[in-house]
């Protein structure tokens, strides 16, 4: 039994401190997924907290045969998709200009120029992701920031591997069209096939 399994077993018995270790271990992937999906720091934090609370209350339904991270990210992405649907019901758009991520604004360890570059990079990423439908965005985020295989993404999104391939294909094609319109091109050394 590894460390994570011990924490999960203790958390299942009601040990909050053990679940605190789980939160510390997974807070960045969970928050990052929520932020990339929702494009809003406040909503992303709320979604990440809700995902951990749901995971804690539903620990009995977690099957240890599967990776815990996959299960946790599945809860997070489902919650984010629900939030996006609710937003649509409120006629709000993800394209609205939103405040940049506070961690980027408050990071004093980088110089102002590096900070500005990083902010611009993050904004460009978010603007590109905002072009995609939520299920395409979800697949792209899981692929690039969580380095998941097609099989793992399919498990998180509760669908088939072929459906994921198709979504990523369409998402990348859509992104390429946006990239051409924005005149994006890589550095010459990166452009080599």
């Amino acid at each position: 039994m590894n460390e994570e399994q011990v924490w999960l077993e203790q958390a299942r018995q009601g040990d909050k401190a053990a679940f605190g270790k789980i939160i510390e271990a997974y807070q960045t992937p969970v928050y990052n997924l929520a932020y990339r999906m929702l494009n809003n720091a406040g909503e992303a934090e709320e979604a990440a907290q809700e995902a951990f609370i749901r995971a804690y209350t539903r620990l009995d339904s977690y099957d240890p045969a599967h990776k815990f991270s996959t299960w946790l990210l599945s809860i997070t992405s489902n919650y984010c998709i629900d939030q996006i649907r609710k937003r649509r019901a409120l006629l709000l758009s993800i394209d609205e200009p939103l405040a940049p991520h506070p961690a980027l604004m408050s990071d004093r360890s980088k110089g102002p120029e590096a900070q500005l570059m990083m902010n611009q990079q993050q904004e460009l990423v978010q603007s590109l992701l905002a072009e995609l439908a939520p299920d395409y965005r979800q697949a792209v985020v899981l692929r690039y920031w969580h380095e998941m295989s097609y099989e793992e993404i399919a498990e998180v999104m509760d669908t088939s591997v072929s459906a994921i391939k198709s979504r990523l294909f369409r998402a990348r094609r859509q992104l390429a069209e946006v990239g051409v319109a924005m005149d994006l091109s890589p550095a010459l050394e990166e452009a080599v096939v």
Partner: protein
Amino acid sequence: MEHDEIYTMMMDALDGELSATDHGELESHLRACLFCAREWQALLAIDALFRQTPALSPAVDFAQRTLARLPNRRYRLWIISAVYILLLLSGALPLLLVAWAVSRFGPIMSEPAAVPDLLASIERTLQVTGTVMRALLSAIGEFLIQQPAVPGWLLVMAGIVFLWSGIYQQLVSQPRQVQ
């Protein structure tokens, strides 16, 4: 070669799954087709951008604040156990009652005179209930004959309450029409 086929090759190349033969085909197509070459450049740029952009972390006190919001799982487990026990008892209770009734009244019911006596007592109970009901109804009838104004006033009062509740509902629930 179809553009869709080229796109599939591009996706495979991004995932590092393009064979050497297809690699050559893709390269030669990109040299000949400006449209695909531009899209490939954009795809590479976005792929590199996504791969280089770090994951975002929440605020430093995120874990503590989340921990504070967690429900008490031990208490929840205790409540769930209590509910299960109650459900189990509620299922077992009727069975226990039946067992007690059988053990208590079984010997009495097995007596030869028990059933006719029971039927006779039920009949007598029904007779008494019928007499009481008849007396009540006749008393109400006598009252209505002697005081006919009382039911009339009650009907008028009920009508007024009904009317005012209808008016109130119309005033409160109907949206105002804007001229």
